[in-house]
């Protein structure tokens, strides 16, 4: 079992609709996996199932050799599964810097010291890394949508995950900010495996080693970037035709 994440036959139904249907997925430590597919393909559903904020109606999820299918989201986070949301989730009434500090889940003593010293410096670096400078003391609720997306990425990184699930981190960002994001993603250490959901295909193609394509809740393709670019199934999925 060298897989960090092993998803088997995972499914989620809403009444008659199968938002996700029998999907298998493997992520090894340090992997860069892109996850693409048209709107409603089930990408966010898959992320939510892995993170635990949604319960599957079928299938199994193993993380680091351990069955986490029934584990609460907070427990999974503590095991090392970090994430961002498609709709950025931040703590509106806390300053941006405190958002990162709370997300870092520091032991009590270090958090207190963090009011001044090292953790605070680290949090500031994380903010700068995602392209947020000069807003450390701004309440997160006063940030723009794009800034909140950047902030949530810094918060997810602060948890030092071994698997990072990113749901459209480039959505709503301006081209220069996408550049910052691309170089940040490229600079992340291989101690963290990344599952990147993105409609911004250039970003995914530049970042990922392998790409998985979903369509109507089903897995239609997994391959390298060149394979994916030339895959007829992928073209068909994006043309809105069932593969």
């Amino acid at each position, binding site marked *: 079992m060298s897989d960090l994440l092993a998803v088997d036959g995972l499914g989620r139904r809403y009444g008659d609709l199968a938002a996700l249907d029998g999907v298998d997925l493997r992520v090894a430590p340090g992997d860069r996996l892109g996850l693409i597919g048209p709107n409603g393909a089930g990408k966010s559903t898959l992320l939510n199932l892995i993170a635990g904020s949604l319960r599957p109606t079928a299938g199994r999820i193993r993380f680091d050799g351990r069955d986490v299918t029934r584990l609460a989201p907070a427990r999974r*986070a503590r095991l090392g599964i*970090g994430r961002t949301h498609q709709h950025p989730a931040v703590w509106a009434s806390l300053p941006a810097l405190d958002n990162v500090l709370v997300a870092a889940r520091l032991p009590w003593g270090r958090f207190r010291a963090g009011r001044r010293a090292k953790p605070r410096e680290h949090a500031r670096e994380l903010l700068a890394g995602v392209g947020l400078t000069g807003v450390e003391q701004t309440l997160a609720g006063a940030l723009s949508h794009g800034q909140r997306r950047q902030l949530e990425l810094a918060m997810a990184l602060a948890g030092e995950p071994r698997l990072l699930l990113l749901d459209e981190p480039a959505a709503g960002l301006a081209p220069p900010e996408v550049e910052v994001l691309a170089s940040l993603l490229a600079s992340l250490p291989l101690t963290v495996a990344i599952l990147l959901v993105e409609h911004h295909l250039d970003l995914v193609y530049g970042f990922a080693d392998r790409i998985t394509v979903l369509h109507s809740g089903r897995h239609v393709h997994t391959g390298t970037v060149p394979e994916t670019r030339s895959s007829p199934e992928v073209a068909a999925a994006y043309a809105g035709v069932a593969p």
Partner: protein
Amino acid sequence: MSILRRLTPLGFPALIVVLLPMAWVLDDYATKTLTSILVLGLLAASVALLTGVAGLPTLGQTAPYLVGAYTAATLVRHDVSIGVVQLLAAAAAGALFSLVTAPLVVYARGVVVLMITLALGELTMTVAGRWKSVTHGTDGLLAFAAPAPLPGLVTLDTDRATYLYVLTVVAVLVGVMLLVLRSPAGALLRAARDGEARMRASGHPVAGYLTVAYVAAGGLAGAAGSLLVTVERYVSPGAGGFDISALVLLAVVIGGATSLVGALLGAGLVVATRDWIASRDWFGGSMAGHAPLVLGGLFILCVYLLPRGLLGKRTAHE
């Protein structure tokens, strides 16, 4: 209002500095009223901790308040005459009550919390009215002996001494809560209120944090119950009725739900308004029965004119 808000860190010490000399300025009647306001203010602070800071809107803090009051009254009747002992026992009883009922509260959200806590409050009041062997039912418990705050100190047999004792207890308890809320604990509670999903995604046990807040608020309410007995020398089920819950929630909304000091000020405003109206004889008769109506009007005005209350903090999207 922004000036008021900017002065918030200084507000609490300043408030205490203003209140302290009142013991020598006011007459007995006004002193007694102010003492009662402080007691309800402490209860309101516990409601603000839950409603505004932790995001659990409650109508049920009268439950640990009653539990604390009956605990203190029972101790008085068994000749335990040290105020601090009564206070700690009442706070512990209120906290224990909250620990036991926490599973009912901390997993619910929004209006459901209001309904569950309302039920807990009503249930506690009903038990207080029926469990005659312990509570003497609707007759209530007399607890005549005035306590001494600490062994060796004078007994609280004047209104002024009682006022100073209550003021000291409220100042210490609210002061400690304010310090705790400025620590990381405060950030964790506000984060849990702002975005639970993100808290979970960051690995924080939200229900655990809310349980701690709920138990702490129960301890504060229990302590307020002990002060009630010290002031009134009596407790009956009516001390924790729905009208008190509503009055206190109104005080919290007026004060700005996120602010404990606001809750104290709100309690002052609400109680003063109620008592002042009740003593008028407009429209050719006493207004005593119409206070709820006027308070309701005050509530609506407040929601429209001061949506964040007197001292409420700016939060999301403003």
